[in-house]
């Protein structure tokens, strides 16, 4: 479709950020966990649990929001003739970055989306997470300035771009075949948490519809939380930042209206108060997102518009979540996991190795 894309204007992205800022706290009101109306990392982790890739009983649920993000983006991409199947830009590196991005996010307990929703809900620990995120992205911009890149994609068959959307559709069908049963932790092949954050969720179809809507809007507006910070640091461009700030401000107001605002550091929902590791976990996540060219939400939206490499990043995140829980890397409200600190150190070394060694040579 030719003509101006109104969502790509300054006001377009602000409106999209504001809409997400209303919908995310509403999802929490409707049943999603505290300050977790939407969390791409947490929800992908819950999906990993639902399909049995990890056995952390409190975080197992096939989150329809994630399914909606991918499919909503795909609908928008087809409607506006922006579906472009492409693949082949260092997929295995993106997989590894996805895995470590997830591990870093689970040390903090949230992706950038949840970091701002936690802030908007009054969780002071989010400040450390956001500072760490910004620091990690800043390191990423240094590599970008030195010519770091992942190489070019190739145009490919439409089918390649369909793979992640089809996987998501398959997940949704599994949810219909094996629906949650009252008091049952297992329904056919799917696991469902009986307690903890995984047991807290908005009604299935509402979650799916909100996910589809946000997926659609985010594809049109190119909403990206990492890009918001990166573009500001790297180019002084505040276009994406407008959407990011609108999300924080509107989510804050919505939380006030819904009575979900509760300021403090201790006792915040699904959060811990180990300041340094909140910072360092998100430093790792921020660096990995910056090296991979998008926040976890953006990677889902890109997957919907045919980017097979973004889909590999998503799979990396889901596998990373499995490692995070199987190896004791993920934090809990009590603090970091037994091997979380080691994982952050290893992850930072891996990201630095990737950043230092993948330089532009006649790309």
């Amino acid at each position, binding site marked *: 479709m030719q003509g101006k*894309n109104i969502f790509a204007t300054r006001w377009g992205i602000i409106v999209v950020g504001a809409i997400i800022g209303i919908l995310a706290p509403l999802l929490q009101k409707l049943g999603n966990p505290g300050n977790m109306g939407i969390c791409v990392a947490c929800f992908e982790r819950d999906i990993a649990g639902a399909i049995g890739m990890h056995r952390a009983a409190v975080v197992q649920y096939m989150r329809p929001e994630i399914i909606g993000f991918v499919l909503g983006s795909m609908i928008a991409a087809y409607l506006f003739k*922006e579906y472009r199947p*492409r693949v082949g830009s260092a997929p295995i590196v993106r997989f590894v970055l996805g895995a470590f991005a997830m591990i870093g996010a689970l040390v903090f307990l949230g992706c950038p989306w949840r970091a701002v929703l936690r802030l908007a809900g009054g969780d002071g620990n989010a400040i450390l997470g956001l500072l760490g995120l910004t620091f990690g992205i800043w390191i990423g911009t240094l590599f*970008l300035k030195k010519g770091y*890149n992942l190489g070019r994609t*190739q145009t490919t068959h439409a089918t390649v771009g369909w793979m992640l959307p089809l996987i998501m559709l398959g997940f949704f069908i599994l949810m219909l075949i094996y629906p949650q049963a009252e008091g049952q932790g297992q329904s056919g092949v799917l696991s469902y948490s009986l307690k903890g954050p995984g047991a807290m969720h908005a009604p299935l179809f509402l979650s799916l519809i909100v996910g589809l809507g946000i997926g659609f809007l985010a594809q049109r507006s*190119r909403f990206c939380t990492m890009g918001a910070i990166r573009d500001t640091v790297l*180019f002084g461009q505040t276009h994406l930042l407008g959407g990011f700030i609108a999300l924080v401000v509107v989510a804050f107001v919505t939380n006030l209206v819904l009575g979900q605002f509760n300021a403090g550091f201790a006792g915040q929902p699904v959060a811990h108060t180990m300041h340094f590791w909140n910072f360092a976990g998100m430093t790792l996540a921020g660096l990995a997102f910056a090296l*991979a060219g998008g926040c976890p939400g953006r990677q889902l939206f890109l997957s919907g518009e045919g980017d097979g490499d973004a889909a590999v990043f998503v799979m990396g995140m889901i596998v990373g979540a499995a490692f995070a829980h199987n190896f004791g890397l993920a934090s809990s409200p009590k603090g970091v996991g037994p091997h979380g600190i080691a994982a952050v150190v290893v992850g930072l070394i891996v990201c630095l190795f990737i950043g230092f060694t993948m330089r532009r040579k006649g*790309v």
Partner: protein
Amino acid sequence: MAVTVDARGLSCPQPVILTLDEIKKGSDNEIIILVDTDTSKENVTRAAESQGCRINEVTSEGEGYRIAMTKG
């Protein structure tokens, strides 16, 4: 003679980095940027305009777009 920068197939934010590099260093006033996604098209034109460049023409070319600009 315009200089051409091929940013097709590159992830965010590479097309913008290449564009800004060319605007800063290039001796040519006319710059042509090739991109393959709508996102890159929007990002490149937005970044170029913020540097005072004039976008002369955006045309579909193959699987992507050809953006012709003049340095401000």
